[in-house]
Structure formats: C-alpha cells, structure tokens
C-alpha cells in the first residue's frame, strides 16, 4: 500500500526536478557541443556552425593532435607532476596548519586563525604577488613557481580545521597526551586516520585547482617545456587572436599554421578527459566532506 504524499511535496519535487534538469542540461550541453565539434569536419563548422550531433563525421582533428603529440604530452606530463606534487605537499601543509590552530591548548590559535583569515579578505594584489616570486624569491622560470604559490589557501585551512575539530574531540587527544603521546604521535596516529573525507575534499580542491590552472604558467614559465596543459591550450587560442592583431602592427609575414575550430574542440576534450574519469571516484567524499564542513562549521 503506497502512502499518499501531500500535494505540496509533489509540487516541490516537480519544481526541484525541473531546476535540476535545467541545470544539468545547461552544464552538459556545451560539453556535448564540444565533443560533437571535435568530430566534425572543420569546413562544416565554419559554414554551418556547431551542432549537437556531428554533421560531417571526421577524425581529422584528433589525427592532427596526435600526429605530433610531443607538445601536448609534455604539457600533460607537467600538469600531472604539478598536480601530484602540489596536492601531496599542499595536503600535508594544510593539514598540519589546521591541526595546530584546532588545538585548544594553543593559546594564540584565534590570533593565528585571524591572520590566516585576514589574507583572504585583504590581499596584496597582483603586482606585489608577482614581484615576490619573480624578483624577491627569484623563482621565475622554475617549476617551483608553478606549484608553490597554490599549496594552500585560507579557505582550505579553515575547512580542514573544522574537520579536525569535528572528527577528533579534545577529550581524545587529551587522553592520548596523558598516555604519553606527543603531538607527532597524536597527529599521525589519532587525527590522520579519521580524517578521510576531509583529506579527500581538500585534496580534490587542490588537485582540481592544479589541474585547471593556467595563470601561473602564464606568469612564471620561461620555457614551453614547463607549461601547464591548460595554459598550453589557452595560449593556442590567444596566439591566434594576438597574431591577427600583431600582423597589422608588426608585419608578421610568416605565420605558423593555426589550429582550426575542430582541433580546438578536440584539444578541449583531450584536456578534460582525465578529470572526468577521476571525478566520480572522489565525488562521494567530496559531497559528504562539504556537508560536514557546512553543518558544523
């Protein structure tokens, strides 16, 4: 026997279903167009525009990319490197920092938290930021300049602190302390093991941040060998517009061949691929992690 639900619930479900569906379409549609575009003949795109299903099926774009894949593979390699190194070290520093300011016995935890929080509201801006890395630390051209600046952020530290506070009540650490455990033991033996969702959430934030970043390559790379994948792609598009403008000013007579529309689309697919594969596995933690932070934060 089915229990009759009140009409209001039904209406609510309809409306929320409608919005969820619209949202999903809005998100998925551009991606479908990109995939379809990547399989379409370039001249068809130019003349007829994009479509949901490829009009003239063609693998030409992917052939072009993988004919000389060194560049894109190099960019892939570098991005993977930045993502792995950055996420690992970033997770470590963020968690350690969060652990310190989550401890009650640390007298100045609020002051330190405030200092961290403060930087998320008042930043130095881009020029001091750039000068710091380029002139003061002299990191321009080094791969360090690409993953170092994004190791942690105030938001992630505060999120992590909330996790730790929730997962490990003070009583537990106190009893551990009485049993003779130091901070190192407490951190590794008691705090870290229960921090799964927190680590997954912060790790995913960090990893996505690294994977999607192009700006630091743009600012600090001095050789195309250290370019991030997203920058490699973004720069290809920018080169096209800039060369067009430059040609008028500077008389560039011998322009190397520029990517066609379908090649651009294919590159976008190639660049997003791994994230799409990777996301569903971590998403479970991601959702639960975010809600924990949200409810008890």
């Amino acid at each position, binding site marked *: 026997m089915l229990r009759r639900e009140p009409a209001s619930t039904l209406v609510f479900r309809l409306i929320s279903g409608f919005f969820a569906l619209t949202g999903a379409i809005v998100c998925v549609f551009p991606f479908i167009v990109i995939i379809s575009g990547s399989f379409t003949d370039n*001249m068809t795109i*130019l*003349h007829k525009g994009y479509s949901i299903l490829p009009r003239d099926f063609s693998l030409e774009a992917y052939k072009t990319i993988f004919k000389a894949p060194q560049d894109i593979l190099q960019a892939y390699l570098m991005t993977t490197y930045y993502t792995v190194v950055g996420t690992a070290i970033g997770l470590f520093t963020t968690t350690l920092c969060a652990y310190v300011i989550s401890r009650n*016995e*640390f*007298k100045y935890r609020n002051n330190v938290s405030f200092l961290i929080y403060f930087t998320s509201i008042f930043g130095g801006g*881009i*020029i001091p930021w*750039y*000068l710091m890395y*380029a*002139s*003061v*630390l*002299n*990191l*321009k*051209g*080094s791969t*360090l300049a690409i993953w170092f600046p994004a190791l942690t952020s105030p938001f992630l530290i505060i999120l992590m602190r909330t996790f730790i506070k929730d997962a490990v009540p003070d009583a537990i650490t106190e009893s551990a302390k009485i049993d003779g455990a130091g901070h190192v033991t407490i951190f590794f033996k008691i705090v870290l093991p229960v921090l799964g969702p927190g680590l997954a959430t912060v790790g995913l934030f960090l990893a996505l941040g690294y994977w999607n970043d*192009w700006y630091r390559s*743009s*600012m600090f*790379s*001095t*050789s*195309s060998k250290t370019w991030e994948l997203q*920058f490699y792609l*973004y*720069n290809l598009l*920018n*080169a*096209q*517009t*800039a*060369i*067009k*403008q*430059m*040609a*008028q*000013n*500077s*008389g*560039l*007579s*011998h*322009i*190397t061949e520029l990517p066609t529309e379908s090649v651009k689309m294919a590159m976008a697919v190639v660049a997003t691929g791994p994230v799409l594969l990777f996301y569903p596995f971590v998403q479970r933690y991601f959702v639960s992690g975010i809600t924990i932070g949200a409810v008890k934060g």
Partner: protein
Amino acid sequence: MKSIRKILSLLIAICMVLSLAACGGNKPTSQGNDTTTPGTNDTTTPDKPAIDTSKRVDLVFYVMGDPPKDEQAVEDALNKILLERVNATVDFQFSTWTDWAQKYSLELTAGTADLIYVANWNNYGTFANSGAFLPLDDLLPVYAPKLLEVVDEGLYNQCRVNGVLYAVPATWPEYTVSGVKYREDLREKYNLPVPNSIENFEKYLLGIKEHEPNQGLLTVTAAESSGLITAFDAFMIVNFKYPWVNINGLPYGLAANYDTPSEVYDYWYSEDFIEDCKLMKKWADLGFWSKSALSDPNNDTAFINGLCVAEIAGQNPNKHIAAVNDFEKNHPEWKSAYIAYGETNGVIYPAAATQNATAITAQCKNPERALMVLELLLADEEINRLVQCGIEGVHYEITPDGYYKNLSEDFMYENLNTWNLRNNDFKLPQLSDAILNDMFKRYEELGNKTKWPNINVYGNFTEDYSAYAVERGAVSDVMRQYLAPIQAGFVDDVEAAVADFLRRAEDAGLKACRDGFIEQYKAYCEEYGYK
C-alpha cells in the same frame, strides 16, 4: 605553552632560512653575477671607454609571443659566440600571447629582463615617459659605436621621447599600409571595376551580389575599430576619400591632412561625416553585411574560407600575402589582390621606426654589456643571421639565388620573434617576399611623392591622456553604444542619430578630450617641425 612557543619560533626560523635559501639558491642563474659587476665595471664614467668584460654576464632578452621549439639549440649556438666575443649570454624570454600586455608591464616593474622588445603598439612612449627604459644617448657611442653607423640618424630621432633616446630601432623599412583585400578572380570573372574608391567598391560588391546572391559579401564587426577613432569596421572605407595624416583620422572625431599635419580640423561635426554615415546606411540596407554585425564575433578566417569577398579593416600587405599563400594551397582557383587606401588618397608612408625596436630596462644591472650584445645581435652579420634564421644547414639554407629556405619546422623564419633585430643589409629574402617587395617598391615611389617623403608623420605621437582619462573612457563608451550603430547603418534617421550621439559625447566630456589631445598634438608637430 612553552613547547608551543618553541615550536613557533622554530617554525619562523625555518621559514626565514628557507626563504633565504630559495633566494641564494637561485641567484647565480641570473642575478648572482649581475650584482657583482656594477662595482667593478664603472658605468658612471662612460667617457673612459676601458671596457672590462672579464666577468661573465647573463642577460635576459624579453620578447613578445611564443617560443619556437628549437629555442634552446639556437640560444646555445648564439651564446657560444657571445661568450667568446663579449663574455655574455642571452636568454630569450617570451611573453606568450596570453595576457601579454599585462605581463609586459609587470616585467618592466619587476625588472628581471635586461634587453626588451619595444614598439609603439606596446606603449613605448608611455613606458619611456614613466622611466622604464635607460637613456641611451651617452652609452651608445661608448659601448655600441657600430649601432650608430648601422642605424640611420633619422630612425633614431623617431625613437626619441622628449628628446631622449631610449631605443634602438630595426633598420628594415616596412610598409604596413592599410587597404582593401579583395577577390581578384571574382572581379575578373564578372568584369567589375577594381575597388579603388568608394564608388568602385560599391560597384564591385553589387556586381558580385547580382551574380552570386548566396555569396557572403563582407563580414565586418566592431573588432578592428579602436574605441576612440571609429566604432565600426566598415567605416574604414572612407579612407579612400581623405588624405588624412593617420589612418581613420585622429581620435575624438578630429582629423588633419597629411600635407598640413598641424592644422587639426573637425570631422564629426562636418557635413562630410553625415554624408559618410548615410553611405553606411545605404550599404547596410543593400545587405552588404549581416544584421547582427554589431554583436558578431570577429571572424578572421572569413576571407580565406570564402565567407566574404573583401576585407577593409585591419589589413596590410602581409595579410594579403598570407591570403595569397593560403589560396595557393587550398583554393588554387581563387586570387587575392590588395589595394592600399594610400594608392587612391596619395598618403603612403612606412611604419614608424618605433614599430620594432629594442630598449634596455631601467633596472638593468649591466647596461654596457647589454648594449654590446645588442650591437652584435643587430650589426654583426653572422650573429644576426643566427638569431633571425637559426642554424644554417639545420634550420635553413640559402638557395643558390640567395633566397631563404626553411629546413625545419622547429625553427622558422624570425621564430624568436625578434622583429626588432631586422637588419636591412642582412635580411634574407624569401621567395614569397617577391610580391611583397614589389608592393613595397610601389609604395616607396608613391611615398616619395608626398610632402614628407616616406615619413610616418603621426607615428611617433603618443597621447598622454592621464589628465582626462575619465572623460576619455566615457567618450569611448558613448562611441561604442551610439556611434557603432550609426556607422554600421542600423539607424533610421542618420542626422538625428548623429546629433544625438554628439550631444551624448559632449556630455561625456568630448571637449576636454579634444582640448587635451590638440594641445599635445600641436606641441608634437612643433617639436618635429611638421607644419
């Protein structure tokens, strides 16, 4: 409590040590040597030309655009020679085309580069005014005397800002004359006139429309229009009519003729302007461009893909050559032709010397060595060839009749983007340059007949609009909003729309902009003797 305090102080100590280590560890690559030299190498007494090159100097040369694949190989070959000759190395650093304008000014602020590419389109004048570059007048004769011989005095004068020399220009005269690129094959096929005037251009388009109603005619947008001179690209066709000192006239609706550059007159309030706007409306009504032209994104491949039959904005001989090459490869039955506005209105001049030049940054630690290197790069045939063309036998070869022939995709012609190192004496011609050289020859002849033979009168003027930046921004907005539809022919009553636009521009502060501009421009004409 105590232990935490200890940990904290330890942490801070570690941080400090780490940051120091980071500084120290990286310094030797670019700055370690730099910091030691100024003391030993006395830059303050340039009149004593004892040049000490015993200390190795690593220089950074900041250029625009993307690096070539074989950058390292060419740099290694170059540095081998440079180390021998002046005990210095050069590392080319590229802005890439992403956010290049922002990065360029950051680069100047941070001062990590020694030599830097400068150009008028890259705000050379503004940066020079704000002290970003090193004055070269005293240094050149001492450290790079050869540069004084190789580069014309006249070219140097064009690079002076307020009388001070900040840059060494390239020595290749180039004509980047604006004009109309059109489909010669279609013109021949239907026996249409050469579109060398507004009337003939109209006949050309109408003829094609009549015979091939489905063929797109123009894909014009607002993309090539600078916000302060014109607002819609199709409007650039009026250049056939006016012998203006600058393409499209002067900013803020002003104009001056090339023969009388200092006599600024008003264009927007003239009958001519209304007439030209009516012409645009006529063309729009004839369907020469799309009804959505104002919001369309710029499609720069429209011409080579046959979506339009002419391009009238943002063109230059090099783009015509690009189209010729593309047609040859993809559509051998199509033909591109080019007619410069100046061939009709009689005003033709080469690009300004500041189009491609090299400066030394104000923070450069070894300006004397940088200059010596620049001298070699620009005035030494072997080195110049290496930088511009790559390694002979690997990247290029010279054909028996003296042309450049590329051998490797990894380093193409001028692939280090050092357009500022073009030297007329060493520049290897390419086969495709034949058409270009013919065009340049024709332009040079025409240019010689003008009142100021082959001088870009307006080219060195840089407007300092800091005093009226707010008004300027407002006028630019008004132009985008109200002038663009007029120039695109999308208004019903042209006269009323123009009057409305002018009223709004006045409210936005047109007068302040005009007054500020005219004052500076007149002073500039005075300084250079353009009457």
